């Protein structure tokens, strides 16, 4: 008898069987749908990672990975993105509390860190291009610019999305629809940080060990 009670309590945290609980809330369903999109986006990145891993050594006499990358620069970029992930979490807490002022504040900090990240990335690309190490130099550089550039494009899109969401909070307030979109935005922003972990490990730190 005891065992059946234990099993039941594990399966029914709220005392209602799973089959009788009805459809999940819109918030759960929307987050799940967006999670599926994020996974498909990560699969796109995995193809770019595979291309980079295969073409890593094909420098065609041009500069190689260990000659090009500045580790301190990348550490600073990584710090910005990681901190912006944290401030994005703070923004979600502010939204749960329906506090407009602190939502705007944390959104501003998140966006500022994202802009600094993008600035660092663009300046790195600019330096490489002016040194003659553009994407057309070798297969290695083509795959590098595609992988890191795609991540940068995602960050840019995320910044635009954040800006639009702040305008929506300003005009519509904390409606359930707006809050669902903010939840999706935070998932997107955190997923970009996960992709960046792969980028700095494989591209920048792995450069010295290939």
């Amino acid at each position: 008898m005891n065992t059946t009670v234990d099993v039941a309590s594990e399966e029914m945290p709220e005392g209602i069987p799973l089959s009788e609980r009805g459809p999940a809330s819109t918030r759960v369903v929307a987050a799940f749908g967006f999670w599926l999109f994020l996974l498909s986006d990560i699969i796109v990145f995995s193809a770019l990672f595979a291309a980079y891993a295969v073409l890593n050594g094909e420098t065609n006499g041009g500069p190689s990975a260990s000659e090009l990358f500045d580790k301190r620069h990348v550490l600073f970029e990584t710090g910005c993105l990681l901190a912006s992930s944290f401030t994005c979490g703070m923004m979600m807490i502010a939204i749960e509390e329906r506090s407009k002022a602190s939502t705007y504040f944390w959104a501003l900090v998140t966006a500022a860190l994202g802009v600094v990240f993008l600035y660092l990335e663009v300046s790195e690309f600019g330096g490489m291009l002016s040194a003659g190490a553009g994407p057309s130099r070798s297969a290695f550089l083509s795959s590098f610019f595609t992988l890191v550039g795609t991540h940068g494009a995602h960050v840019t899109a995320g910044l635009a999305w954040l800006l639009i969401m702040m305008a929506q909070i300003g005009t519509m307030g904390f409606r359930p629809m707006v809050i669902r979109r903010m939840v999706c935005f935070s998932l997107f922003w955190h997923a970009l940080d996960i992709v960046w972990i792969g980028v700095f490990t494989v591209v920048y730190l792995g450069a010295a060990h290939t």
Partner: protein
Amino acid sequence: MNAHVETTDAQRAPGSHQSRRDRLRSYSIGFGLAVLFTAGSFAASSSHLVWGPSIPVLLAVLAIAQMGVHLVFFLHISTAPDSTNNVLSLAFGVFVVGLVIFGSMIIMANLNHAMMPMDQLIDIHKQR
């Protein structure tokens, strides 16, 4: 009744607690761990404390650990009933990602290995 309460608490995601303090703590723990792993992998990549050929493995372990931290503390993936579908689709996503990356690497390494060296290939063309 006590046991009932414990299971529901354990099944909740670290960030899906209702109270502000718990959410703040979840993000702070995640951020602290992420900083630790990031600093660890940057330090490991240029350290001489670790045997050289093992550094890529160490970097991979640190990166995967940090991805796990982000998933649990930032994206709130957990074993909660609400999250079952998320976990299942994540498992499938990880499977596909592994297939694409390691499949490509194995196939390309194999083709590289089987390919004739370039100078011999040029010689064949010149003999015509």
